[in-house]
């Protein structure tokens, strides 16, 4: 077995606003192995968004270390973090975050653009990723011409296209109706079955139930770590 994809030890995150300090994470230790499908659950204000930002290398911890794929990212500069995000992480956001003025495939190729790949290869891989999420016939459509569920699948394709170490989904079904939610969750299941490492952040228990492992976070601490055997 190779090194864990995510290894977090003693991570604290303190936000400072003037003289007021607020500790969002008060010492997190966790390990996620390759191929795991982890749901981070907790009420709002529990620190799960902060954890998501740290796991996504969008922010660095105040204290503690974070090894992503064996690489210590807790002390990296902004430019280094950008490179790590590009290479190792695929993001799926609640608000999709697609660029409205670009067709689907141009949205999907964006991470490859920043990786510096040539245009022909980018296009080929973007189209393949769109086919992978079942949108092979929507390559040239702009986000505005797609339903919410389709838009989120474009976003999943964008997360997949770089073959990242980990897919980070932050409330991916928060803006979707139940049919689209089912479609997106089915897609995540499929990706999990194909061996992808997925970290999902949610406050919906039905969504969390789809994962293989639930991390419950409350007041900046992990209070529960359960394997979901149902599936």
């Amino acid at each position, binding site marked *: 077995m190779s090194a864990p994809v995510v290894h977090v030890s003693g991570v604290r995150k303190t936000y400072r606003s003037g003289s007021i300090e607020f500790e969002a994470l008060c010492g997190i230790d966790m390990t996620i192995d390759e191929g795991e499908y982890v749901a981070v659950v907790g009420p709002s204000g529990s620190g799960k968004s902060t954890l998501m*930002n740290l796991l*996504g290398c*969008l*922010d660095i911890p105040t204290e503690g270390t974070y090894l992503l794929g064996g690489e210590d990212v807790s002390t990296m500069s*902004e*430019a280094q973090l*950008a*490179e790590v*995000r*590009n*290479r190792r992480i695929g*993001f799926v*956001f609640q*608000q999709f*975050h697609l*660029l409205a*003025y*670009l067709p689907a495939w*141009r949205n999907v190729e*964006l*991470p490859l*653009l*920043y*990786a*510096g790949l040539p*245009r022909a290869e980018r296009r080929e891989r973007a189209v393949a990723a769109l086919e992978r999420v079942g949108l092979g016939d929507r390559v040239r459509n702009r986000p505005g011409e797609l339903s919410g569920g389709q838009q989120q699948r474009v976003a999943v394709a*964008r997360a997949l296209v770089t073959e990242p170490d980990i897919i980070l989904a932050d409330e991916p079904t928060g803006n979707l109706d139940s049919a689209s939610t089912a479609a997106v969750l089915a897609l995540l299941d499929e990706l999990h079955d194909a061996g992808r490492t997925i970290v999902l952040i949610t406050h919906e228990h039905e969504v969390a139930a789809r994962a293989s492992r639930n991390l419950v976070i409350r007041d900046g601490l992990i209070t529960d770590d359960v394997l979901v055997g149902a599936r």
Partner: protein
Amino acid sequence: MSWAETFRTALDAVRSHRLRSALTMLGIVIGISSVILTVGLGQGAQDQVKKQISALGSNLLIVSPGSSTSSSGVRGGFGSSTTLTLRDAEGIGDPAAVPDAARVAPVSSGSSSLTVGETNWTTSIVGTTTSWLGVRARTLAQGRFFTGAEVTSAADVVVLGADTAAELFTTPESPVGQSVSVDGAQLTVIGVLAASGSSSTGSSEDDQAVMPISTQKRLTGSTTSSVNTIYVEATSADTLSAAYQEIDALLLNAHGVSSANADFNISSQESLVETANSTNKTLTVLLGGIAAISLLVGGIGVMNIMLVSVTERIREIGLRKALGATPSVIRRQFLVEASMLGLAGGVIGVLIGYAGSFVLPSLIDQPVSLSAIATCAALGTSLALGIGFGVYPASRAARLTPIDALRSE
């Protein structure tokens, strides 16, 4: 990320916000086109003045009388005295005294009424010698100029300006050979001058009657040998100042005065050109200054819109950063966008300026000369404006942290 990709990304952003991009460019477009036009107008006016002045004759020196001082000590203005005489003109014409003078034409001028049948026309009378035609760089449309013999004999001949001939002779037949009544004398028209098209010092060069100076003196009953102006043509443009010195020395000596109270005045075309050009230059600087201010305003417009664009696209910036764009890539993208807007505005401004240079002359009767240097400078300026005023918005975009940017609604 390569420059080509950055360029493509910026182009997508510019193209997808058409109205905003167009409004951003508007300030630059107006600024650049007004710079092109004002510089063109100034240049055109200078060219025109140069052309008009050289049409007066080449390498020309104009000697005019200075101020006169009456016995009571009252000094008149320049040209009020009658200090120049035919003898002065002969002196200047002497190659021993003024070796750099090629030709000399003394002019005694006045104003008279010319009558042909029922038609009469008042015009300026130019009494001069045969060299006038060459010195003033004029040509004849019909007939001939008077000869030296006709000057000596004070023959009753006259050469008319093109406009004068047209006023007096309304019939299509040639005026040459017909007679004109001037101050009671009957003069035969022997030639008509070709139109010069220019007017100097207020009076038209095409409305005059030229006759031998002896004839003019006889008609006006003048017994003096004074002349109003002596036109001197230097042998070349290089000897102009030498000729000036020689004439100055000769006349000071002949009139027995020191240079401090010289009773004559020598001017050259160059001084005329200089005066006219300095006026034009002042105007061009003034107009150019206004145009430069509008360019500055246009540049601030670019910065304003780019800042709005950064705010409006915070989430896009956050997303791009999350997907792996480094701060420098984001900065570059916004800089390229700003310079693209600046340069595109500049190109459109140059095109409008060029179009205006074709339309404007027919509206305001002013020539517009376009210069390649001004055009290149305008384009360079617009690019620099885009870059210069894009730096601040671009660095603001680059500094945004991805989480804050993504979370913003």
